[in-house]
């Protein structure tokens, strides 16, 4: 039991930090531009595939640097030549543009790398068990993922709190118009923020690629969870996104490792109809409903706290 607890907590925090790498960019972009980037998970996927291709040519470590830069450049280009153009048509048009973009990116990835998973391997340097607890080997690569995401988290925090750019970004989180009135080049800040945000998602993609499956549907699988994180945390709230990322990471990881079901809990006391027309609900295990856990959480949050956990802004 303790073993399960420790391993699941580690995995949960890891997944949560990965989610936060993406959710942070998404939140900052949303706060500043007012547009929820539907294609954000697509940049995560682009990061993974760029990382795969570059690590094939030059090795994993250059890939860790170049792939996010490339994806960030693509992101900045999208902002400059796409989003800025549709901005005048309102937020719905912007959201639809990123929706179409997500669709096109998935198709392009399928055309270039195919529909089946690619063979993105953990670098040899990190391919060993980091430590053994309760006879389970914990891979070093996962520790590396955790370290990278924590390092980026700390770096982001420092940039936001201690630098001038961070100050402007923070100001734009709450008073986007005022920042413009104060004479900052809002267009360039937007492009920069969009580029950095998408690059962060791409970092998550590169480090998650070898550990999870690098496949053309990975954006489609992760995207909705990402939006749940942002809504549950409260739209536009960075601390909220952090809490929600960890929460959803932990909830999903723990759910996967649990095997309980209603029929198991009730045992022979199950009512008679449980075996017939309630069989589906009665027999389903917690592990099986793990994929819908985030959405259940979303519905609960919407009922009891529509603003999100730490949200203040009503959009």
């Amino acid at each position: 039991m303790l073993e399960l607890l420790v391993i699941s907590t580690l995995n949960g925090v890891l997944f949560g930090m990965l989610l936060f790498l993406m959710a942070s960019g998404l939140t900052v972009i949303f706060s500043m531009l007012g547009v929820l980037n539907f294609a954000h998970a697509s940049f995560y996927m682009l990061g993974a595939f760029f990382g795969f291709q570059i690590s094939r040519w030059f090795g994993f470590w250059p890939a860790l640097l170049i792939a996010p830069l490339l994806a960030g450049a693509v992101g900045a280009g999208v902002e400059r030549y796409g989003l800025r153009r549709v901005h005048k048509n309102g937020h719905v048009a912007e959201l639809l543009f990123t929706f179409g973009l997500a669709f096109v990116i998935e198709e392009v990835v399928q055309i270039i790398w195919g529909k089946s998973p690619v063979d993105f391997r953990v670098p040899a340097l990190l391919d060993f068990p980091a430590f053994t607890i309760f006879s389970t080997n914990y891979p070093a690569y996962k520790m590396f993922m955790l370290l990278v995401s924590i390092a980026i988290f700390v770096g982001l925090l420092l940039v936001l709190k201690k630098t001038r750019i961070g100050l402007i970004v923070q100001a734009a989180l709450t008073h986007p118009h005022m920042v413009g009135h104060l004479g900052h080049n809002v267009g360039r800040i937007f492009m920069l923020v969009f580029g950095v945000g998408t690059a962060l998602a791409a970092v998550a993609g590169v480090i998650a690629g070898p550990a999870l499956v690098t496949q053309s549907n990975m954006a489609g699988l992760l995207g909705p969870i990402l939006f749940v994180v942002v809504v549950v945390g409260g739209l536009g709230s960075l601390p909220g996104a952090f809490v929600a990322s960890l929460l959803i990471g932990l909830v999903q990881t723990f759910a996967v490792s649990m095997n309980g079901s209603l029929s198991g809990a009730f045992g022979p006391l199950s009512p008679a109809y449980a075996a017939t027309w309630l069989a589906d609900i009665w027999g389903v295990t917690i592990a099986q409903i793990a994929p819908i856990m985030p959405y259940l959480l979303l519905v609960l949050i919407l009922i009891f706290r529509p603003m999100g956990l730490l949200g203040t802004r009503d959009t």
Partner: protein
Amino acid sequence: MSEITAGVAPPLPAAAEKLKFYGMWLAAAIVLLLLPRMFGSGSSLTTFSLIGISIIFSLSYNILLGQTGMLSFGHAVYYGLGGFLVIHAINIIGANKLPIPLPVIPLIGGLTGLLFAVLLGWVSTQRSGTAFAMISLGMGELIASSALILRTFFGGEAGVSANRTKLLKLFGWNFGPQIQIYYLVAAWTLIAVIAMYALTRTPLGRMCNAVRDNPERVQFVGYNPHVVRYLAFCFSGFFAGIAGALAAINFEIANSAYLGAEQSGTVLFATYIGGVGFFIGPIVGAIFVTLLSLGLSDLTQVWRLYFGLIFIAVVLFAPGGITGLLMMHRPLVKAGTLLRLLPSYLIALVPTLAMIAGLALSIETIVHYTVNPGDDPNIKAFGVGFDAASPYLWALAAVLLIGGYLVARRTWTMVGHAWDGATSAARDKGIAA
């Protein structure tokens, strides 16, 4: 008081306008009746049925997006649940020999859609805008993933099937042949379109528009925007359920793809490409997108990519959709200044088409090298055969793409000037543009 209301109420329409209005619906009914006489083949009947279903679904979607300003990414939930319930209903009715004929079955789908919209709508519609979009996405994923877990009801990946011919026969129709299904779909399409049009003319429909344009002001007038959004959501779910029911009857199967994100995306594409600003927009979009997806999939392997690119192009350059583009020209037609535009349109068309051709050539060539690299390089796309290995072709594609882009940019600026001239001329004649 009575004087004021008399002054505010719109004048009764003249007899000629009434005739025109009812004549339009009558004409639509006659066209629907005559279509199978003109195109009687099985495949075209299937296409017409699909278009009909898509029209109902897109219009129901536009109650949300166009009328009330709610962008939903999970509209397929109500479509799919309607479909599933109808399949189960057909099975139950068939097994118990209940006296219910097939033509009323879509109503079951509609009521299912309504029921789930009533259940899920209240929390979904608390907020509009981006929050609503994300919530609808979450709800959609919730239901779609649940469908794969609850295997007895949803039948897992395979889905649930039914036999539509086992029901009570009406006038000797067993609804086996496609032509009978076509008439069923056509009748329901006409009913649903009329009902949804009528809905836009009711006070509720007008309040929906008001909520879309200025929710704050709606509150001041004394309405609760949340309630208005909720009602619109329920109506939308009802009609989506009817569309899903017809789809389930048409294919005699319902599976989890009915509920999924792809179905929600398709209806969004159809509605937006058609144009959300006019009632007829989603109808145009449904016809266009259905024909496009059927036609393109024959012509090229990567039709979904073109589909996405068309959508992005519409979002970027024609936010009003196809109908929006056409309707822009109405004041010019009235003023008779449209002819001034035509030359610049024709000039702009040439480089634009060249650019599109270059883009398609490049895409097909790249697809040849990445998807099927081992195949014969003489590939055929859009009915045109060419040699993907030839460097001349690459050069041609590059020249068309880049040259076309550069020239097209210029010519579209010219179109802009011509447009300004034509509209100001129209304005001079007293027709507002």
